[in-house]
């Protein structure tokens, strides 16, 4: 029997997500693809929205959507390496990688300075990129890493596969958790020094599948390859061993960047100390090592939290919740009133953003899969 007090709000919510995502997906992918593919992608996004509101399980359905987004990226841009059968049918160029924004930021500033000096500033990309990044940061902030990033989708999906962690890895939650911040400072400076995207050249695991940009000598290339293989292992094997998002937590400079700038975004996960029993269940559940034990063992949420919502169901007393600017708002759990609480508002922003970003490659991936099936059958 369908619960109408849940069904109707969930349907209304999914429609609210569907309309903007459909509009943007058609605009982005409609020119090159049969309209059915952006529509399918939009329906997938809207279904995710529906089930999140209908069941109240944010992270579970988010993860399905998020992993789907990451898999579609791999299908469309990376599987062609295995066989020509997987060659992408359209959109041959990968979208500009958001991770490169952070470590190459000074380079962009310098390029924009040159553009301004040349008088042709409007012809240059960095300023456009900066506006896009600022817009997404204002809309979802740190949540980009748990809702829209294709690296994060791989890491997050894999971390959910093992039932138990084979390697207990609580120790990095301390000072080593700041390693991406150190990596970011180093990369900002050294990228500027060499006027090169050093992260992409030396550490990006997905760059391995493309051509090397520089013509360094054989020794340097071997080191680059070794580092990329290491990063690939951290991305694919780390989550399977630890049940944590190891790449996002320790090797992603964009994560550190977004943790810093994400403060300007209003959405937060907050702890209700009155409900908290200091059981530490949320510490174990956080895949990002973003929760640590504070006073009297009660959880403190670090800036690295990217609002995946994984900790929410781990607290049996409901002591964790989404919030706007950390303000406690009494939220309705049933009926249409639920659509006005911070959680629904946040999920709406996150899904519309991720759905629109995914339209750059997910509909194309659906077409690739359809083409492949047609060829096989």
């Amino acid at each position, binding site marked *: 029997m369908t619960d109408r007090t849940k069904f109707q709000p969930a349907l209304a919510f999914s429609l609210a997500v569907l309309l903007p995502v459909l509009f943007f997906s058609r605009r982005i992918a409609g020119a090159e693809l049969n309209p059915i593919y952006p529509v399918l992608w939009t329906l997938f996004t809207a279904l995710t929205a529906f089930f999140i509101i209908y069941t109240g399980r944010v992270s579970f359905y988010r993860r399905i959507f998020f992993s789907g987004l990451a898999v579609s990226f791999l299908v469309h841009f990376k599987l062609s390496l295995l066989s020509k059968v997987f060659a992408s049918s359209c959109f041959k160029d990968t979208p500009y990688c958001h991770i490169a924004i952070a470590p190459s930021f000074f380079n962009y500033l*310098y390029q924009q300075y040159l553009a301004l000096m040349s008088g042709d500033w409007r012809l240059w990309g960095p300023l456009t990129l900066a506006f896009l990044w600022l817009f997404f940061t204002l809309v979802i902030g740190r949540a980009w890493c748990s809702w829209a990033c294709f690296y994060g989708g791989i890491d997050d999906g894999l971390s959910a596969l093992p039932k138990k962690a084979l390697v207990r890895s609580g120790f990095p939650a301390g*000072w080593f958790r*700041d*390693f991406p*911040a*150190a*990596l970011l*400072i*180093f990369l900002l*400076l*050294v990228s*500027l*020094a*060499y*006027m090169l995207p050093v992260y992409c050249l030396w550490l990006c695991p997905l760059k391995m599948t493309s051509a090397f940009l520089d013509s360094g*000598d054989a*020794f*340097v290339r071997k*080191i680059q390859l070794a580092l990329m293989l290491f990063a690939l292992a951290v991305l694919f094997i780390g989550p399977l061993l630890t049940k944590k998002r190891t790449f996002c937590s320790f090797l992603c400079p964009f994560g550190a960047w977004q943790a810093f700038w994400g403060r300007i975004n209003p959405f937060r996960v907050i702890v209700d100390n009155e409900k908290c029993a200091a059981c530490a269940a949320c510490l174990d559940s956080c895949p990002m090592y973003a929760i640590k034990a504070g006073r009297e063992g009660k959880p403190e949420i670090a800036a690295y939290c990217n609002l995946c919502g994984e900790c929410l169901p781990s607290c049996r007393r409901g002591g964790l919740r989404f919030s706007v600017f950390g303000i406690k708002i009494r939220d309705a759990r049933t009926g249409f009133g639920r659509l006005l609480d911070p959680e629904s508002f946040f999920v709406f922003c996150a899904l519309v953003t991720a759905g629109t970003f995914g339209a750059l490659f997910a509909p194309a991936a659906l077409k690739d899969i359809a083409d492949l099936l047609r060829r096989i059958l």
Partner: protein
Amino acid sequence: MLSILSEGFVLGLSTGFYCLTSCLPVLVPYLLSEGGKAWKINFSIFLEFLSGRFIAYFLFAVVSVLIGRTYNPYLPDWAAPLAMALTALAMLSSLIFCRSAAAGGVCAPPVSPFFKRIPLALGFMTGINVCPPFVAAFVRLAGMADMTAGLFYFTGFFTATSIFLLPAIAPTPFLNERLKVIGRMTLAIAGVWYLLLGITGLIGL
């Protein structure tokens, strides 16, 4: 001589950005790691670093003029990669041997008295790495072949390029223990990076 001094200064002003890119990856991690909340500590590190650069620049001024006179090749090929490797070792040894200067610790790896002044050594070794503005200054000095003029020229050049490094001490008043740990990790990464580049450069000779 004033015109020579100002010529060096103008060259430094116009090309100082390159100095910033070669010196900041060394200076910033060190400042984050060993600086303190007090401007005095940070500024003394900064000045020591600049002194190292100044010594290196003077050395260059002398060498450039001598080249102008004798047409001998100036620094040997191994000097820059070796300096890079030594910079890396100085950075890594400071990590191993230094306790925070702000906490009253002493930064003295037991290598040589020179290395007891880590920022000075870092400044010197980044100073002898040849960058495009240096080449421009070198060509001018080799043409002049005048020792006094050369020293004036590089003084102007050094002063102007140092201005570009000033932003490095701007974030240091916000230093706390957590940021210092991040600074040490950055220093370690930068140390390994320069060591790698130095070794690669030496192997490739």
